[in-house]
């Protein structure tokens, strides 16, 4: 019983550690920080 509890705690701990690494060190890209919607005028269509 004690072994099982130890393994469960170890599994959750490892999962948390890996998740934290991904969260802190991951490079998921940077979403657009600027720009936006701009009206298309007839001069753009020429």
């Amino acid at each position, binding site marked *: 019983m004690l072994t099982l509890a130890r393994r469960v705690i170890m599994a959750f701990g490892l999962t948390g550690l890996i998740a934290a690494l991904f969260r802190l060190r991951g490079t998921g890209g*940077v979403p*657009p*920080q*600027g*720009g*936006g*919607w*701009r*009206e*298309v*005028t*007839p001069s*753009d*269509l*020429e």
Partner: protein
Amino acid sequence: MHVALLGLGAAGSHVARQLTQLPISRLSLHDIDRQRQRRVASAITAAVGDDIDISSERPTASDPPDVVILATPSGRHPRLAESWIRAGSHVVSITDDPDDVAGLLELAPLAEHNQRRLVVGAGFAPGLSCLLASYAASQLDSVDAINVYKAGTGGPNCARQHHRALKQTGSEWIDGKWVVRRGGSGRELAWFPDPFGARDCYRGALPSPMLLQPVFPAAQRISARMAATRRDRLTSWLPMMRPPHSDGGPGAIRVEVRGQRDGAIETVILGVMDHPSVAAGTVTAVATAAVIAEQAPIGAGGLATWSNPKAVLTELYRRGVRVASFNGVLAAIAAEE
């Protein structure tokens, strides 16, 4: 030039108003609701005076109009279009029902044989969405994927079609074949032009892919989604719980076209925010003008088949329909530049 407008609902009445700016001498306005027909006819007559002969009689095949605009509820457009093409009229249909669109596209051989023009889905989406896709594609060397998103509805018939679309299956073009998808699935958050903002969009019975695929046969993926709330999804399998609004606007369209330009992958994003019934009326009138001027191609197809989307968008701009493009800029890249 004799033009007949069948159906004077939310979009149809806006079409009638826009038609007064076209070079037509005779305009037949018809609706099964006689009171509404009289109201629209008197308003148009007051606006144009004697310049256009306004008639409330339903046109007949013995005296066919040059152009017939079908703005009636969806379901009967293929049958009506076939009879008017056989009578010798050009036809502009405003339907947004996939079954109607499929039936209308099947009339292509008849239209070509009779040298008639059949414009399919000349409304907000499809219609304006097809034009945006065509214009976006013209900025790329090749097209890999097209995603169309729409939000909002026009009049009550449009709202009913919107409700039906969410519970029915829709087709997406994926890797060279049609794949049937369940309505209400495939949630994506789509950002529409300001101030409409972001909406959750889902698959549904939407006709845009079947109008775009013949024009972009090399595209690997063509899909369409519609905005819906949790309540819309929850009640989509039930009859409409309350009568739809007389006008469901404002609405919006977002069209993403991904492809290649100068060897690099590019995505062009265009959008429109407007009242769907107003914008649909304007698009239908501009499509009718193109048919009158013999600029629309012979045969059956959507607005994406037209060779010069820029000219059509310029005319729509002149009539008040504003298109926007989305240009996202990475702050890190902008800072380096």
